[in-house]
């Protein structure tokens, strides 16, 4: 078996430029697969990290009546969590309201958060130190769409728990920058205590954000959603992009493999005498097939070496400097950092390596299996096909 590989290696090396051109075609697929998947993995990692840091924490303990996907659940989806269960949790109360920036009416989701919390990156400490009567925080996107700046007053109107309308003049005391659209668009953050007072929902919360130390336990009327379950929509969305774009690099891979198939199929025709000579010298047809198949497999190994030569500096650059995205993710409702730093895991490289080697070997085997039906006498004359 080693001999077959040695001969295949020698045949390819001696074929010179032809070998390297084939390997180059295949190397494009190799580099593109790693580049694209590295970028997606980087995006995924950043998106997950952002979602955890800004909203999900280590899970949500939700009031059984609260469903963030159902606006009708806001009215009744809140409650008082017994004190002994509140350890390592940050309360958030969600309520509906309306703001009137520059006289326009704009429905908002008011979120009251514990001002001393350090579980998520919402800069709630600003609310604590502000001297304004009703200090509120906005995300950049929300501030832009409402035309509000830091220090601007805005009329806020809501109904309390009994359905009675009330209104105050709130002050925008901070605008935060985030990649996470679901803590920004259409939302207004304020102190939990203030919101509880405004709504009459004393000591109540819609959900709690768990920190790392939180140990989930069954609590009547509350449901714990772990971090992975919360992150699933984010991961699913990114994976959907991944599979969609796979078509592009699989096409490139198919072109690379077609080059190998063509080369090997043509080689069988062109090298009939060589095949006959190998058989006359004592090789079995199986060994000759293995030698030609090994040549095909080696194309992929050469492609990996070649791709590694020009791809590695590119990958290192992208991992260090990232790729800037001109379109902000928050306009699309998905988490995209302005700069995505590619992540190249060992698993990605090994998987791509195996994909290339196995597919090139199979394609080469398909092209060379004709040798099995060759008559060696005719092959020696170059007339077997």
């Amino acid at each position, binding site marked *: 078996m080693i001999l077959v590989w040695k001969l295949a290696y020698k045949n390819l090396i001696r074929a010179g430029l032809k070998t390297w051109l084939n390997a180059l075609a295949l190397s494009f697929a190799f580099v593109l697969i790693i580049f694209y998947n590295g970028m997606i993995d980087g995006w995924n990692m950043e998106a997950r990290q952002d979602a955890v840091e800004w909203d999900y924490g280590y899970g949500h303990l939700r009031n059984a009546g609260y469903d963030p996907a159902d606006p009708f659940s806001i009215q009744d989806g809140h409650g008082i969590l017994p004190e002994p269960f509140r350890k390592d949790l940050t309360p958030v109360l969600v309520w509906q309201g309306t703001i009137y920036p520059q006289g326009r009416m704009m429905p908002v989701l008011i979120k009251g958060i514990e001002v001393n919390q350090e579980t998520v990156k919402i800069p709630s400490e600003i609310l604590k130190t502000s001297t304004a009567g009703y200090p509120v925080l906005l995300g950049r996107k929300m501030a832009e769409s409402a035309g509000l700046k830091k220090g601007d007053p805005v009329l806020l109107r809501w109904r309390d728990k009994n359905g009675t309308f009330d209104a105050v003049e709130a002050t925008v005391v901070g605008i935060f920058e985030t990649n996470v659209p679901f803590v920004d668009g259409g939302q207004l953050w304020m102190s939990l205590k203030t919101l509880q007072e405004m709504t009459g929902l004393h000591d109540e919360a819609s959900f709690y954000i768990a920190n790392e130390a939180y140990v989930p336990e069954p609590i009547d009327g509350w449901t714990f959603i772990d971090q992975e379950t919360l992150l699933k929509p984010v991961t699913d969305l990114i994976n959907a992009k991944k599979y969609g774009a796979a078509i592009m690099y699989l096409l490139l891979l198919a072109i690379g493999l077609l080059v190998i198939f063509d080369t090997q199929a043509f080689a069988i025709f062109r090298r009939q*005498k*060589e095949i006959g000579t190998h058989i*006359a*010298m*004592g090789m079995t047809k199986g060994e000759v097939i293995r030698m030609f198949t090994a040549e095909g497999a080696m194309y992929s190994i050469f492609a990996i070496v070649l791709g590694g030569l020009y791809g590695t500096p590119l990958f290192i650059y992208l991992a260090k400097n990232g790729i800037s995205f001109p379109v902000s993710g928050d306009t699309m409702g998905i988490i995209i950092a302005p700069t995505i730093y590619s992540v190249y895991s060992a698993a990605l490289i090994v998987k791509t390596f195996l994909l290339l080697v196995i597919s090139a070997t199979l394609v080469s085997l398909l092209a060379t299996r004709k040798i099995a039906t060759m008559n060696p006498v005719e092959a020696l004359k170059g007339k077997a096909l």
Partner: protein
Amino acid sequence: MNEKIIIIENLVKRYPMGETEFTALKNINLTFDKGEFAGFVGPSGSGKTTILNILGSLDTPTEGKVVVEGEDVSNLSEKASALLRKEHIGFIFQSFNLLPVYTVFENVELSLLLLKKSAAEREKAVTAALEWVGLQDMARKKPPQLSGGESQRVAIARAIVKRPNIVLADEPTANLDAENAHIIMQTMQKLNEELKTTFIFATHDEKVMQYLKRKIHLQDGRVSKDETMETKTLQL
């Protein structure tokens, strides 16, 4: 008593030809002793190459028995017939069949690689084989850089480097001029005498025939004459 290296009994070879069959060899009965320098002679289509291919286990008889080195080639598996060729038979072809991307040294070395000889053994044997054929200075050249005569000498070196008991040469001088044809035949004659290798030719070239110690005349697939010759010994 001479050792019988090849025994052919009632050999028949037929090829399908459309809906009918063409009989290339008809009831051949022959034996070859170790160290013979013999040849099948006759016009094109007489069955010379067919019988050589069967002796080399590249083809199989339709009927009859062909025993080469104690192995009945008609019943050999592909693996066993490959082993027979690898260990005991060397081939020389009309069009040399050298591997163009390999050097002269590597072409000759290939049969030893297949026999899994060590690098030192290969080096020694290839050097000796190239010396026998007078090409020791051409070891690093590639076949396209060689003349026809040199290419055929490389093919001879490749055939004898593993010291096979039998060398089968199919029209070895067909692509060579007269001078090179004589050099090639003299080289093989010398190897036959020194190494006691059995050489069997298929030829219709008069230049080859004059070196043969035994001529087996084939006519329409039958042995028409089997004659032992007094050959001239040429000084190399």
